């Protein structure tokens, strides 16, 4: 475990110094929120301010996706540009560099989430969350970021180039739009409603929306927890499998 702290520090330095990562993790969700509120908000909710209440949890969800996607690129860079070769000749656990990227992603996403909520409040958003609700939101965001980052880490391990890692991950970023994140599921075509209702992002965003509104998330929190645990395990198993396949270790 001694190796995790230096690797996390390294990944945080990457995130802070890489302008593209900063833009993708922090600026892009804010721009997305402004666009949804002021371009689509009137059409979707009658007026922009009304849509702000609905869309903030969705932007937090998407924000986690953008932030986690950069993990695939960071891991792929380590795998394909030589650093992993050096680490493999050292007494360093093979998962430690990747865990550093994952923990850095969690920190980066929590900061990005705070920025999104702060900007939303400047626009007039007034969350009804109490102290326990904020803690619940923190737990929900952390669980979701861990889950989706694990998947992107696996993509980063498997990708044969940095560009490929970026491309594979992009597909996942469309999933929030087919959930309860941006519009009520009831407004979707019937054939899409089943998918939207049962895909993992719906309980995640419902839970976040409930916490931000100061309400009980009900069964969504439990469903979200199961989904996040399953996705995290799947992502880590996938990363381990891809790692063993690409770099068998003695």
């Amino acid at each position: 475990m001694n190796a995790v702290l230096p690797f996390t520090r390294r990944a945080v330095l990457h995130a802070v110094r890489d302008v593209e990562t900063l833009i993708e993790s922090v600026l892009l969700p804010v721009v997305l929120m402004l666009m949804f509120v002021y371009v689509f908000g009137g059409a979707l909710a009658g007026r922009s301010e009304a849509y702000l209440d609905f869309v903030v949890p969705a932007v937090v969800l998407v924000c986690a996706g953008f932030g986690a996607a950069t993990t695939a690129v960071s891991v792929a860079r380590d795998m394909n540009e030589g650093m992993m070769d050096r680490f493999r000749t050292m007494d360093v656990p093979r998962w430690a560099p990747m865990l550093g990227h994952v923990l850095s992603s969690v920190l980066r996403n929590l900061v990005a989430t705070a920025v999104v909520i702060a900007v939303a409040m400047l626009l007039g958003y007034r969350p009804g969350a109490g102290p326990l609700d904020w803690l619940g939101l923190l737990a929900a965001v952390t669980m979701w970021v861990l889950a989706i980052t694990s998947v992107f880490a696996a993509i980063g391990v498997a990708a044969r180039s940095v560009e490929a890692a970026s491309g594979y991950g992009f597909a996942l970023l469309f999933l929030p739009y087919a959930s309860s994140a941006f519009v009520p599921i009831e407004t979707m075509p019937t054939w899409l409603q089943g998918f939207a209702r049962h895909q993992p992002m719906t309980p995640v965003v419902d839970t976040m929306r409930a916490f931000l509104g100061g309400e009980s998330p009900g069964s969504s929190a439990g469903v979200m927890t199961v989904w996040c645990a399953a996705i995290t395990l799947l992502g880590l198993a996938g990363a381990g499998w891809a790692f063993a396949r690409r770099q068998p270790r003695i």
Partner: protein
Amino acid sequence: MADAIVVEGLEKSFGDQRVLDGIRFSVARGSIVALLGENGAGKTTTLRILTTVTPADAGRVAVAGHDVASAGREVRRRISATGQNVSVDATLTGAENLELMGELRGLSRRDARVRAQELLERSGLSDAGRKRVRTYSGGMRRRLDLALSMVAPADVVFLDEPTTGLDTRARSALWERVRELAEAGAAVLVTTQYLEEADALADRVLVLHRGRIVAEGTPAELKARMGGATVAVVDGDGAEVDSEGSDGTAAGLRDALARLEARGALGADSVIAVHAATLDDVFRRLTDDDGDEAPR
């Protein structure tokens, strides 16, 4: 001196291609051994197996007293390796790279910082230490790469073509550092394509050709094996265009000239030079697939 590296019957294939064909050698503590060979000879594969990165197909390898196949972690604790390609983190500064490596090698953060400064100075990178590596030239990156492998003491040091991309001055400085490592007791295995490097640096040279070690000995022994002198045909610029080994006697020199003439290398106005055998001559003879030298 005890052997820090023992390799016996090492074999490795990639698909149908046999890369290592039962090689066998050892490296004593406190000595420098050069693994000399052309591209594709199997040098890097050998190093990757010895550093636990790639599993072998057959054979036994012990590094620092531990079997690489069954005690990889023990081996990794005792080695330091620099690969053929520069492995530095371009987003971090030179100092941060060294500090990271120091912490991963078990130094405290404070000790890692002190060690980083020492290595930056010794590598001629003091002024660039606080700059991001992405601003470094190729030679600076290579020097940092080598410094990273020297952050903490190691029983065995592996260097895969370490002077590629370095200028003459930096190359000499690196050789000096490598000699210091050996004097401190480390066993050093260095791969190289540069005969000059093997001659200047190594206590012993292993010539690897098509996955087999075709010669082994000190540079002087290998040169002696070629005979006392080389008869060379040189062009107008003094560059050698063909050569033959000889035992240095008058009869031997005549024979060498006859062999050159027989294959049409001599013209009426050809310029002939005679010089003591170099490692270059040894290498060319040993790795010439039409040559007479049999694999060891």
